[in-house]
C-alpha cells in the first residue's frame, strides 16, 4: 500500500463546476380544460385553490402539475362585503398571502401590491389576479428565463374561446428580469396577439399583463388579460358577450363566483402553457494524477503467486498493475466514494495518466 494514497492539492487537483440541464415542459390546454372530464382537477373543501393533474388524480400515474387560484387586494374595485361577493375574505387573503411572499412589504410594514412593471416606486398595480403555481416536479430549480408562453383563448364567446388568442410570454426575461422580490428573480409577462387581433395595439414587446417569478415558479396574471387589454372584453361564463351580460365579465366573475369557479373559467380559456425548466448540476471534478512512479504495485491477493508477481514473466520485467477503481478518501482516510473505470487501465513505470473523477450532487 506504499503509494495507495495520494493527497489532493486543493488548488490544482479539484475544481467545482455548475452545469445547467433543462427540460422542455409543454402542457397542452386540452389536459387542463377537459380531456379527462375534470377528473384531473382537485378542488378542496377550503375552496382556496384548485390543483391540476396531468391525468385523473385517483390514478397512481397522475402527476401534480400546477395549482390555480385567484384573488384581489382589499382596495380592489371588485372587493366588497355584500351577499353578491362570494369568498371575499378568502380572495383577499389569497392575494395578500401571494403578495407578501412574492412582493414583500413596504417601509410601513404593509403588504406590497403586485406592480405591473416591477418598478415599486409607483405605476399601475395588479389588484385582481390569477395565480398559477407550477409544481417543483415541473419547475425544478427555476423556470428558464425567456421561455414561458401561455396562450389564452380570448374570443368574446365563452363556448368558442380559441377563435382568437393572445400569447403571454416573458420575452424580456432572458435579459430584463427584476431582482427586487423576496422570492427571487421575476420577469414581466407581456401579451401579444396570437390568432386574430383581439388586442387593437401593443408595443414591440407586447403589453404588460402579469409577472412571472422564476425560482418560485409562480405566474401572476392580471385580470386585465380578459378585459381592458382587449378590444372586446371576454365573457367568462356565457355564450353571449359581456356587452349584453356584464355579469359575465372577468371582474364580475372574480367578485361573484367562488375561487374554484374562477379557476375553471381560466382553465377553459387556456390553450397552451409552455416553458423550459432549469436544473442546476453541481459537480466537483477531482483530477487524480497517477505519475510514472505511482501505483505500480498492488496489494491485491491475486497480484502475487509464490511471492512473484503473476503479471510479470521475467524478474527483469517492469512492474505492471491494472487500475480498476479510484477511491476518494476524507482527511482521516475514510473511504467516501469509489469511481470505477469502464475497463482496467494498464499502469507501468513508463506511463502516467490523470483520472478525471466527477462527483455530481
Amino acid at each position, binding site marked *: 500500500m506504499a503509494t495507495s494514497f495520494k493527497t489532493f492539492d486543493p488548488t490544482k487537483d479539484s475544481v467545482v463546476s455548475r452545469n445547467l440541464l433543462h427540460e*422542455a*415542459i*409543454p402542457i397542452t390546454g386540452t389536459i387542463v380544460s377537459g380531456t*379527462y372530464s375534470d377528473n384531473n382537477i382537485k378542488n378542496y373543501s377550503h375552496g382556496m385553490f384548485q390543483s391540476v393533474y396531468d*391525468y385523473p388524480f385517483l*390514478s397512481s400515474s397522475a402527476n401534480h402539475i400546477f395549482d390555480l387560484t385567484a384573488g384581489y387586494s382589499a382596495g380592489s374595485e371588485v372587493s366588497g362585503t355584500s351577499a353578491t361577493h362570494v369568498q371575499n375574505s378568502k380572495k383577499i387573503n389569497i392575494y395578500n398571502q401571494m403578495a407578501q411572499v412574492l412582493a414583500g412589504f413596504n417601509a410601513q410594514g404593509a403588504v406590497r401590491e403586485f406592480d405591473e412593471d416591477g418598478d415599486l416606486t409607483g405605476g399601475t398595480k395588479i389588484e385582481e389576479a390569477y395565480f398559477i403555481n407550477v409544481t417543483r416536479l*415541473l419547475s425544478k430549480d427555476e423556470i428558464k428565463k*425567456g421561455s414561458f*408562453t401561455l396562450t389564452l383563448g380570448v374570443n368574446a364567446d365563452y363556448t368558442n374561446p380559441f377563435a382568437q388568442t393572445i400569447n403571454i410570454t416573458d420575452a424580456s426575461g432572458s435579459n430584463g428580469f427584476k431582482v427586487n422580490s423576496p422570492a427571487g428573480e421575476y420577469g414581466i409577462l407581456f401579451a401579444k396577439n396570437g390568432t386574430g387581433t383581439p388586442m387593437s395595439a401593443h408595443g414591440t414587446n407586447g403589453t404588460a399583463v402579469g409577472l412571472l417569478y422564476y425560482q418560485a415558479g409562480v405566474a401572476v396574471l392580471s385580470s386585465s388579460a380578459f378585459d381592458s387589454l382587449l378590444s372586446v372584453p371576454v365573457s367568462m361564463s356565457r355564450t353571449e358577450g359581456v356587452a349584453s351580460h356584464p355579469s359575465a365579465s372577468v371582474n364580475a366573475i372574480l367578485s361573484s363566483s367562488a375561487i374554484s369557479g374562477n379557476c375553471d373559467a381560466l382553465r377553459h380559456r387556456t390553450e397552451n402553457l409552455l416553458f423550459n425548466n432549469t436544473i442546476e448540476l453541481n459537480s466537483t471534478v477531482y483530477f487524480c494524477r497517477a505519475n510514472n512512479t505511482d501505483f505500480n504495485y498492488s496489494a491485491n491477493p491475486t497480484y502475487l503467486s509464490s511471492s512473484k508477481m503473476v503479471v510479470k514473466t521475467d524478474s527483469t520485467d517492469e512492474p505492471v498493475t491494472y487500475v480498476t477503481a479510484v477511491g476518494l478518501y476524507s482527511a482521516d482516510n475514510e473511504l467516501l466514494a469509489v469511481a470505477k473505470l469502464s475497463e482496467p487501465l494498464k499502469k507501468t513505470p513508463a506511463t502516467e495518466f490523470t483520472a478525471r473523477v466527477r462527483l455530481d450532487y
Partner: protein
Amino acid sequence: MPYYKFNKNDVYRNTLKTFPSVKFLVYSGSAYYNNTPNMSGAFADPIRLTDGGHVSLYEMNVDRVSSSTDRFIGGNIPDNGLIYSWVVKGGDRLGFRSEAAASWDASQYGDVLISNYPYTASIAKEFYSATTPRSSSAPIYVSPTNMTGAVSHILTLKNTINHYSYLNPQFAYSSSVRDFNLIELGLINIPSIFYGSTIKQGTVDLNYYITGTLIARAQDTNRDGVLYGTYGETSGSAIGLALYNEGFLILTSSVSLSDDQSYYTSPSVLSRPRWTVFAQSLTGSVLGTVGDDLGPGPDPAVGLITAPSASFLMEMSGTSMVQTLTAFASAPKGELNQSTNPTFIKYTANNFANSSSQAYIENDKMEIKNVVSSSYADPTGSFEKTTYISKVGLYDGNKNLIAIAKVATPVRKTVERDFTFKIKLDL
C-alpha cells in the same frame, strides 16, 4: 411563542432497513411488475409509454404522445407534446449517456442535445444453449438477441460467481461437476431499481406454471444463494444460483419438469419445460432472419416465443435503506401554559385596547377563559391554566420554520403536566 433548543440527546438519526416486495409475473411475451396493469389513456397506450413490467424513472410523460405542433418553447426548443430534457453542448463536455459518443462529437458547440423520457428499466432473460459460444469475435446469438460484444453476459459474471464460492461450492463457474461454458443455462437480469441495494437473502421464490397449474417451485431454502427445487420434478435439487448483490439469477437445471412441450427457445422447435427456460416467454419475438450470418451458434428463426400455456411467477424482497431523523421535543412542567390565541381570553366587551394620539393602553385585567371541565355549566371547575398543544414547529439555526409536526388531537397541557413529543422525519 416559546422556542426550545434541542439538547445533544434530543435528536438522532438512524437507518431503517426495509424489504419491499417485488413480484414479476411473466406471461406470453410480457412481464407485470407488482401487478401493474397495462392501462391505456385518452391519448397514449399504455399511458406511461412503457409496459407494466417496466418502471418509468421520472413518470413524467403520462398519457402524452409525440407529435409535431410547430411550436417552440423559449425560442429554439421544439414542442413535440412530450416532456424531455435538453442541454446545450458546451466546453464542459456535458452530454446524455443515451447519446453515442460519435453523435456527440459530430454536433457543434451551442447545439441543443436532447434526451427523451421515459427512462425505463425492466427484467431481461437470456438463454444459453450448450453450444452457444460464451465469447467470440463475432456477434453472439443469445436468445432472443444478438450480443454485439465479444464476451457474453454470463462470462462477464465469471469472477463474481467464483467470488461467492465461500458460501457454497455451487458457486463455481467451472468445476469438475459442470462448466458454465458448456451447459445449457438461463440468465435473468434484474435491474437494481427494482430491489434497491440488494435482494434480501432467501426471499427468491420461483414458480413455474403450465396452464395455471404449478409444476415446479424453487427457493433459496438455505439463504446462501443456491436455489433448490421445493416442488415438482426437481424438488430437493439445486436448480440455479442467485447473485443477490448484483441482481442476477442463473438457472442451470435442464431436467424436464413436465411432458407439456412448448416453443421456448425457438418458434419452430418444441421443447419441454425446464428451469433454464424459466421466464423465457418474456423475450417475445425473435430477431433476425433465417440464414443470417450471426456467427457461431444456431441461427435464430423468425417468429414469436410466447409459450402460451406457460406462466412464470418470480417473487423476492428488495432491500431499501431509509434514513430517519427522530427528535424529542419536550414541553416541561410549568411552561407552555400561555397562548396568544385570541380565544384564550374570555370574551368581554372590555378587551379592546384604549388608544389615542397620546397613548395605547391595553386592558391588563383581561380574564383567561376557564376551560376546566365540570359536571355543570355554571359554576365551572376550579380555574387552572390550560393550553392545548396542536402542533410543534421545528426551526433551523436562523429561526426559519422548516417543519411542522401535528398531533392527531390537541394535547391538554396544564401547569403540572409535562410531555415529550417524539417527532420522526423520513429523510
